[in-house]
């Protein structure tokens, strides 16, 4: 893995990078009217059954430009983690 490592500050999962990206999206891409958002069921699938999800159903990279979708993904991920620990 070491050869792929791009930053000495980050780990092999690029955790810091994705955390910063998430914060960046939350701060810079408010979308209160939920314009262009994929169906909530698609976001749920992305977390629970990602093999079923297509780029088209996600409206391409919309999530990287939507604080609302990012927030929902965080909640779904948290819920999944919570369920797994029970």
């Amino acid at each position, binding site marked *: 893995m070491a050869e792929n490592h791009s930053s000495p500050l980050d780990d092999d999962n690029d955790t810091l990078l994705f955390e910063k*990206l998430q914060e960046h999206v939350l*701060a810079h891409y408010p979308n209160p009217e939920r314009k262009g958002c994929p169906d909530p069921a698609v976001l749920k699938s992305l977390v629970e059954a990602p093999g079923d999800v297509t780029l088209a159903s996600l409206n391409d990279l919309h999530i990287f430009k939507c604080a609302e979708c990012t927030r929902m993904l965080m909640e779904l991920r948290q819920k999944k983690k919570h369920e797994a620990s029970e």
Partner: protein
Amino acid sequence: MVEMQKPTPSDLCWNAKFPPEQEWIERTVHVAVGNIWRHAHHFAHAQLGDDSMVPEIMEIAIDGTVSRLETGSPQSHEDVAVLLERLFLQEVRRRRNANNRLVYLGSDQELPNGSAQTPHAPIDSAIDLDRILHDIPPDVRIALLLRYSRSRWSEVAAVLGTTEAAIRLRCKRALDRIRQKMEGEIHEI
């Protein structure tokens, strides 16, 4: 009552003076205007408070782009879009700075805080991120979305039926570009 329609990218290109002997310039500029049109409105709205000046500013950017291109060799659509966008953003920033210099006597803008441009910085970042992500291939897009929705590359690799090393290598270029964009914020930690 007939409502006046807003100019389209095609209207703006119609107004511009393109050198007839270099037909590629008109073709590539036309495509470039269409490609950056949405960003241009977003950026102008964020920097100037509204996007009503976009057609006028875009015309200036088109003229600047044409004058630079007619003295050089043919460029790709992407390069022309980058040049046009740079000239557009430059003109928007110039106007924003000119507006910031208009200080009303007795207003709080007389206070010497020197930070008139600071609130706009996050908007610049947002637009840059949009640009970073727009040309990545579909398989990398889906991998990045999967990684964004979970916490480990090993899980992404399992979903895509590949290895963790392979998927990270495939995404490396996009990750480097995002990392570069986020670098300032990461170093703050």
